[in-house]
C-alpha cells in the first residue's frame, strides 16, 4: 500500500514537473495576445507538484505512525490480474501484424482455455463466433474500419 502510494505520488510529481518545464519553454506570462500557451499548464503543473508533495508528506507521516498498513491487493490477487493484463497486451501486439479480429480470436481462445478451463467445444465456438459477428457488424454493416495489421487484409479475403 505504501509503495503504491509513493509510486503514484512520485508519478504525479514527475508529470507536474514536466508540465512546468514545458510551459516555461512556451512562456507562461502575458504575451502579444493575452496569456501565452504555457500559462494554463504552468499553474496546473505547479498545483500538481504541490498536491503530490503534500500527499507524499501525508504518506510518510501516516506510515511512520502505523507502518506499511495493509497490502495493496489481497494475497494472491496479482496472478489473476497479470493473467488478464499480459494476454491483453499480447493481443494488441499481435494486432499490429494480423489485425484485431484474428488477434482477438486467438486471445479469446487462449484465455478461455488456459485460464478459464472452459470446454474445448465452447472455446472454439465462442472464439470463432464472436470475432466473426463483430467483424460483420463493424467492418461490414457500420463501416467502421478496424485495424488490419500488416497481413490482415490478406488473411481475411472477404
Amino acid at each position, binding site marked *: 500500500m505504501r509503495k503504491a502510494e509513493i509510486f503514484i505520488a512520485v508519478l504525479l510529481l514527475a508529470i507536474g514537473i514536466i508540465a512546468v518545464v514545458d510551459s516555461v519553454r*512556451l512562456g507562461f506570462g502575458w504575451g502579444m495576445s493575452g496569456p501565452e500557451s504555457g500559462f494554463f499548464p504552468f499553474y496546473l503543473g505547479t498545483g500538481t507538484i504541490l498536491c503530490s508533495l*503534500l500527499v507524499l508528506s501525508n504518506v510518510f507521516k501516516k506510515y511512520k505512525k502505523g507502518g506499511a498498513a495493509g497490502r495493496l491487493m489481497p494475497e494472491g490477487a496479482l496472478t489473476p490480474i497479470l493473467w488478464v493484463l499480459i494476454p491483453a497486451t499480447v493481443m494488441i501486439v499481435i494486432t499490429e501484424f494480423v489485425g484485431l479480429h484474428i488477434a482477438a480470436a486467438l486471445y479469446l481462445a487462449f484465455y478461455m482455455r488456459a485460464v478459464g478451463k472452459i470446454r474445448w467445444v465452447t472455446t472454439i465456438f465462442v472464439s470463432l463466433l464472436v*470475432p466473426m459477428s463483430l467483424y460483420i457488424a463493424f467492418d461490414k454493416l457500420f463501416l467502421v474500419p478496424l485495424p488490419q495489421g500488416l497481413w490482415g487484409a490478406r488473411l481475411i479475403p472477404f
Partner: protein
Amino acid sequence: MAGDIQNLMMGLGIALQPYNITVAIVGLVLGIIVGVLPGLGGANGVAILIPVVVTMPATTGVILLSSIYWGALYGGSITSILFNIPGEPWSVATTFDGYPMAKSGRAGKALVLAFLAHGVGAVFGVVMLTFFAPIIAEFALKFGPAEIFAVMMLTFSAFVGLGGTSPLKTVAAILFGFILAAVGMDIVSGQLRMTFGFVDLMGGFNFIVAVIGLFGLGEIFLTVEEGLNIEGIKARVGLKDIREGLAEIIRYPKALIMGSLIGCWMGLKPGGATPASFMAYGFCKQSYSNKDEFGKGASAGIIAPESAAHGAGTSATLPMITLGIPGSPTMAVIMGGLMIFGLQPGPMLFKEHADFVWGLIASCWVGNFLGFFLVLAFAPIFAAVLKIRFAIIMPIIVYVCAIGAYSVNNRMIDVYYMIIFGILGYLFKKLNYPLAPMVLALVLGDIAEQAMRQALIMGQGSPLIFFKPPLALPIMIAALIIFFWPLISTWKRKFPGEPVPTS
C-alpha cells in the same frame, strides 16, 4: 410552459419515429446488459458505441447513447437484487435490502419494487428536465467566458468539497486530468505542448480512450482481484408480483418522493447518482419508525435508493445540455458524442438546434418508459447473462474495449493508452484517487482553458474579472465556499463557537 409542451410534442414526433424507437430499444437492451455485467459500466458501454453512432443522424445517435444510459440504470438493480453484486456503483445501496428480500423468496416483488421506483424517479427527473432546462438555458445565454469558467470552478469544487474522498487527492486527480487535456496542439496559438517531438502525442489524449481504460479495464482488474463467485437467486416476475409491488409502493409514498427529490437535486451537481442513492437510503432509514427492518428486506430500503439513483441519472442531463457541463462520466461521454456531431452543448444548443434538443428530451420520456416495460418483462432473461462464466465474458469485454478505443481516432496508439489507463485506473481506485473528476477535467480541459484565457483578455490580465458582479461573483464565491468546505467543517468542529447561552 405551454411553449415547452408544444416543443415536447414536436420532440415526441421525432422520438417516436419507427427508426428512432428501434434504436432506442436496441440501446436499452444493450444498456441493461451493460448494467447487469459487473466490469462493464454505463460510461464504458456508451464510450464503446461512439464509433457506431457516428454513422447515424445526430438525433438518432444521441438517442442510442442515452438509451444505453437509461438501460444501465435499470439493469444495475437486477444484479444487486438477485446476486448481491452491484452491477453499477449507484446500486450498492440497493443490495442492503434488495438482496435480503430476494433471499427470503420474494425476488419478483423486490424487482418490481425496484423497477417501479426507477420509473417514478425517472418521471421526476424528466419533468424537471423538460420544464427547467429551457429556463436555465435562457439564463445561461447571459454567460460570458468568466461566468463559464466560474461554473466550471463550481463543478470541480463540488467534487473536492462534497466528494467524500481525500480533497488533496481529488485536486491532484483534477489537475492531472487538465494536464492530460493540455497535451497536444494549443487551440489558441497553435503551438505544440508537452509533445517533446513525439508525433503520437500531437493528437493529445482522447477522453473516450481514457474512459474505456479507466472504467473498463480498471474495473475488470478490480473484479478479477475480488474473484467473482456468483450465486444468484432464481426469479420470475409474474403478474402477482407486479400486483403486490404496486400495492406495496403506494404504501411508501414518502420513500418514493423523498428518493426522487433527493435524486433530482443531487443529479444537478457532479457525481450525483451514487451519493444520491446512499443519501436517500440514509434519510429514509431515519424517517421510518421500523428502523430495525432496514437491512433485512424493507420495501422502503429498495424504493428510496432506486428512485434516487434514477432521478439523479436523469436530471444529470440538465447541466450537460444547458451549460455543457456533464455531471457524471457517462454524461461526459454522451456529451463527447454530441460534440462529434458538431453540436456544442450549452445554451446556444436550444436556439440553434431546437429540434435536436427536444428530440433528446422527448427520447428521455420514451426511453425510460420503454425501459421500464423491458426490464419488467425480461428481467429473468437479463439475469441469465450473469450465468455465463466470467472467463468467457471477460475477454470479450477486453476485445470490445479495444475496438472502442481504436475506432475513436483510428489509431493503434490509443489501444496502448487504453491499457495504461487501465492500470492507472486500478491503482487510482485502490488508493482512493477519484476517477470521475479526472475524466471530467480531461473532457472540459480545452473549454475551461479557452474560457479562462478569453476572460483574462477581456479583463486585461486582471483575475478580478472572475469576481465580476452580478453573475460571476456569486458563482465564484459559492465555488470557493464549497472548495474549502472540508477545512471549514473541521474548523467548526475544533472551535464549536460560542457556548449556547442557557437561560
